[in-house]
């Protein structure tokens, strides 16, 4: 076997910011004072925060050292299932940093913000083309706020029919955000079990769907990486009882150009631009969670809407009395929308479709290569991700956590672990389309080597990782005696 990707390297210890400050240092070029000091009411004057004083070099070294303790997509393969850690194109950063955008105040008169409004308008149209759902808002700031927006649409729709409903069906393969978003709108979640094939059973839905149920939230492809084959039938059942179908589109990256979500019976869908549309995740955001709906539900979308009448300029429109209201102080995470727009313009329809196909090809390639080594609870053609378990390794007292930690030392970010909950000891692998065959082969080889170590030298796993800046951390201590600030 070739040498593993992970190797030795020099990194640096770095204290906390306030452990290195010296009063009187300056890191900031103070603007020239060209006005006099004005009187100030002493009763409101404070002392100012006791931030450390640092030089510019102090700050630069500090964050450079910190960055070297991180693993990003640019560092290597990051097959974090459900999170879609695809490559984040650099041109997107260039476009979002254009001064015409970064220097634009959100309340500029429409005539001075035509470029930004046009981008918002066109991005909505593009997302409509990708999903098949004609009306779009790009205001929600992340996937979970998109879910909340979708649930607000559910609520507003049923209220407008004069029949508020109290429940929402949520499969056991759903993201944890789904029940939490439904709960914010006062909906009680009704858990739906997936069947032995890992997908939803229409008979099961039939038994649960009633006229007090607002609809269903389906993640499709689901968190097992499987397409919900019965989605059309399920949507019919829900619609026949007056309900709506919500699709968590976090996994849209698997099916662009291949599946039309509107044709599958979906009424409301959110997208994660930081997953499917290549915008960076930033170590925890900012993301963006646009929501796409059918024409019948457009009137409920958040305000303001971007509108364009023929021969007129782009403008913001507030006059939508049925709207669920405003979700963001302004128009959402605009800088992220610019990146997604740039991605779509760079790719075009053909490449987006091919990106989905290659994402699915990569996941199936890994699945086929590892299924004799790791337990594969649902041995079926998968979409963009595949889910193994640690069953085979458990007999040697090795768990998913050990495998994940050892994988770091081979130079890979671990997959998502212990999710979805329906698989005990889940190892959820999503390579994405931007990983080449050589890197997939290296990953497969690492996973096989780790399996051998399970039998031959288990300490390599139980003691892993030794190479990173820190070793396994005591999470119980962190939770029992929380220290959340210095």
């Amino acid at each position: 076997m070739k040498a593993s990707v992970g190797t030795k390297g020099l990194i640096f210890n770095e204290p906390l910011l306030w452990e290195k400050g010296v009063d009187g240092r300056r890191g900031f070029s103070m603007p020239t004072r060209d006005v006099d000091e004005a009187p100030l009411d002493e009763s409101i004057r404070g002392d100012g925060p006791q931030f450390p004083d640092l030089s510019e070099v102090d700050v630069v070294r500090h964050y450079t050292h910190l960055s070297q303790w991180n693993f990003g997509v640019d560092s290597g393969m990051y097959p974090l299932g459900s999170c879609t850690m695809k490559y984040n194109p650099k041109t997107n950063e260039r476009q979002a940093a254009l001064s015409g955008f970064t220097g634009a105040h959100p309340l500029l008169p429409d005539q001075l913000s035509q470029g930004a409004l046009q981008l918002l308008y066109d991005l909505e149209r593009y997302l409509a083309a990708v999903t098949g759902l004609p009306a779009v808002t790009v205001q929600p700031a992340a996937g979970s706020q998109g879910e909340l927006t979708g649930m607000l649409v559910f609520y507003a729709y049923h209220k407008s029919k004069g029949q508020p409903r109290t429940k929402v069906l949520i499969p056991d393969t759903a993201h944890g955000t789904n029940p939490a978003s439904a709960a914010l709108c006062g909906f009680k979640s009704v858990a739906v079990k997936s069947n032995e094939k890992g997908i939803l059973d229409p008979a099961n839905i039939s038994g649960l769907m009633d006229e007090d149920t607002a609809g269903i939230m389906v993640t499709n492809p689901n968190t097992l990486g499987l397409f919900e084959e019965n989605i059309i039938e399920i949507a019919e059942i829900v619609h026949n009882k007056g309900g709506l179908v919500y699709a968590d589109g976090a996994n849209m990256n698997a099916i662009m150009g291949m599946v039309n979500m509107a044709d599958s019976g979906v009424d409301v869908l959110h997208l994660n631009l930081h997953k499917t549309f290549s915008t960076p995740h930033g170590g925890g955001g900012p993301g963006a969670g646009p929501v796409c709906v059918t024409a019948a539900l457009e009137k409920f979308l958040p305000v303001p809407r971007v509108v364009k009448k023929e021969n007129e300029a782009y403008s913001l429109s507030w006059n939508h009395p049925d709207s669920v209201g405003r979700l963001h102080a302004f128009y959402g995470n605009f800088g992220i929308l610019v990146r997604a727009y740039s991605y779509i313009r760079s790719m075009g329809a053909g490449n987006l479709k091919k990106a989905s196909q290659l994402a699915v090809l990569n996941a199936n390639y890994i699945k086929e290569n590892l299924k004799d080594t790791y337990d594969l609870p649902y041995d079926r053609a998968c979409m963009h991700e595949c889910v193994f378990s640690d069953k085979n390794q458990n007999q040697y007292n090795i768990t998913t956590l050990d495998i994940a930690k050892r994988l770091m030392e081979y130079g890979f970010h671990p997959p998502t672990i212990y999710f979805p909950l329906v698989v005990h000891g889940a190892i959820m692998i999503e390579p994405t389309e931007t990983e080449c065959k050589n890197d997939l082969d290296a990953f497969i080889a690492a996973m096989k080597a780790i399996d051998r170590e399970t039998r031959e030298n288990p300490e390599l796993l139980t003691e892993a990782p030794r190479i990173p800046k820190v070793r396994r951390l005591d999470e119980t201590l962190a939770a029992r005696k929380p220290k959340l600030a210095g």
Partner: protein
Amino acid sequence: MRYLPHTDEEITEMLQVVGVDNLEDLYKSCPRGCCTITDMDLPDPLTEWELNRHMDELTAGMGASPEYKVFLGAGSYDHFIPSAVQYLLSRSEFITAYTPYQPEISQGTLQAIYEYQTLVTWLTGMDVANASMYDGASGLAEALLMSIRVARRKKVAVSTAIHPHYRQVVNTYFSPTEYEVVEIPYLENGRTDISRIGNLDELAGVAVQSPNFFGCVEDLGALGDIVHSDPKTLMVVAFSEPMTYGLLKNPGSLGADIVCGEGQSFGIPRSFGGPGLGMFAAKQKYVRNMPGRLIGQTLDKDGQRGFVLTLATREQHIRREKATSNICSNQGLCATASAMYMATVGGTGLRDLARLNYDKNEYLKNELAQAGFSLPFNSPTFNEFVVKFPDGFENTYQKLLEKKIVAGLALENYYPELPGCYLLCATETSTREDLDILVKEVTS
């Protein structure tokens, strides 16, 4: 396409391993009824160079600073961003990482956010801060929902001098719930009329913004005395301009239980309103009711200091429908940017810079008053204030746009009782000359 690394040969080889004939056949499990027949209706792909030209054209007509002199605040502020912050933030180890689920290889993000949480507690005078919310508006909505969880009451009171957009977001979050939002009017001096809060024993939380939407600094001490006369009611203080606390007393020192606001001023470009940063802090005793991610300090197997995501039992991925919020991704990179900014400016620097901001505003205010314009609210202000222009000023406003000056925000759309009133903002980025030109132009 340069983001898709597969050669045709590799695709063939991989398809063989998978056991299907072509890429389309990977989708056999998708029902025919929803398989796309026609191509998505999207424009043809652009080369990198064509995209550059297209985006340059798109941004060309934007009325962006510094080409335009934009005297607009109202929740989005123009402050200088040091190059060091921009360059450090562009390190891809920060940008291209996910939420730090694997702490051993995410210590950079984790320590940076732990430091951010700490700096926010010092800025606001609170005990604990979370890893961020989406923005100031959703932060306020979440703060009020949190007050309902803590106090176990069903009503909150919100000052009408809070940013109108923030109040709209609060109403959106509250609309499907059984909870009620009541409004507190403002006084002739531009401050909230805290004598009209209503029956405290019904209220979970009372929210004001300071400085408020009019730029007026609220009397938080007096508000705290009233709110805390009921031991269960929480005092919620919002803000849109964190620079304030470099000069003025912070909300924590005046009794706030939850402080939430927009942190965009600290190292984050306005970027047409987002991404910004929801700063969120509270008293220690409420920590288990807080929404959002928290980073905590701990030890590794060898006893070294390290950081992890903690108190996750509050969160959606563990508690599901019983979670304190549905938030998952937050504004991590923006939080990191603001920490870099706070570190760069430093404690001494922030005090000096905040003072300079205050003095620029006072200068502009005085010059306008001297030119004969009335300033309807006489409370102390920070970074923005309201001025009443004479009838017909809309024409002057339009003419000034042609001279690349944006003379504030007309308030009448938000407050019909304030016709002719404009909210003006000046920060350290305006020179005295810029301010003099503005005064001259609105006078002529």
